């Protein structure tokens, strides 16, 4: 397992928790994003995730570096799954350990916001009567922007 990775198989949470845990960690936060059955009254059958894998892993690692700069002392792992995902499957997992809890919460939430901004991963929702690539329009990002 790599601390910042894209996988095609089900995400095994414990691996990433074990990776961030150490004797100096007093708090661990784990966020998992799951495939939800209903979104705005429309029933999702399944999702298809696609990634530009090398750049996605690079940007995940970049987010990890940003986090460790902002919250010194934390340790982070982030994994995103691609391929066909069904209801309740884990799409993304963020594990953060920290000596104290505040940083573990803040850094974790920062990670998911940044993932949604810069990591080249795309989600297609497949419903009973159609499908669509999801993605909010964002301003053109600055180079090396944090």
């Amino acid at each position, binding site marked *: 397992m790599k601390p910042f990775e894209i996988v095609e198989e089900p995400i095994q949470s414990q691996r990433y928790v074990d990776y961030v845990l150490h004797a100096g960690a007093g708090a661990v936060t784990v966020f998992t*994003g799951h495939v939800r059955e209903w979104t705005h009254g429309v029933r999702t059958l399944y999702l298809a995730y696609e990634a530009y894998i090398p750049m*996605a892993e690079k940007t995940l690692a970049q987010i990890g570096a940003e986090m460790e700069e902002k919250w010194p002392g934390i340790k982070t792992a982030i994994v995103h799954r691609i391929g066909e995902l069904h209801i309740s499957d884990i799409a993304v997992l963020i594990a953060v350990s920290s000596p104290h809890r505040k940083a573990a919460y803040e850094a974790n939430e920062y990670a998911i916001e940044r993932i949604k901004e810069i990591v080249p991963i*795309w*989600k297609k929702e497949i419903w009973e009567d159609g499908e669509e690539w999801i*993605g909010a329009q964002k301003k053109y990002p*600055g180079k090396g922007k944090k």
Partner: protein
Amino acid sequence: MDRRTEKVSGEREEMNMITVNYFARLRELTGKTKETIERGSMTVQELLDWAEETYPGFGKDTVHVAVNEEYALKEDVIQSGDNCAFIPPVSGG
């Protein structure tokens, strides 16, 4: 033109090659995961203009470009041999 010049010229032509990758909606629109463009250099803006012209509905105003796995600015210059990717709005998480 002697053989040596020809050869150098030939190598130069081989190097006029920018690779572009397509993902998600753009992969489906173009029907391609990647292709090469025979250009020695161009700006990111020129690449986006080329894509819009070549593939109607490309939507260049919402598409970002990565050059060698780094987000690039519109004024950045792409060189022959660079590996580019069109990044439509991301939706991970």
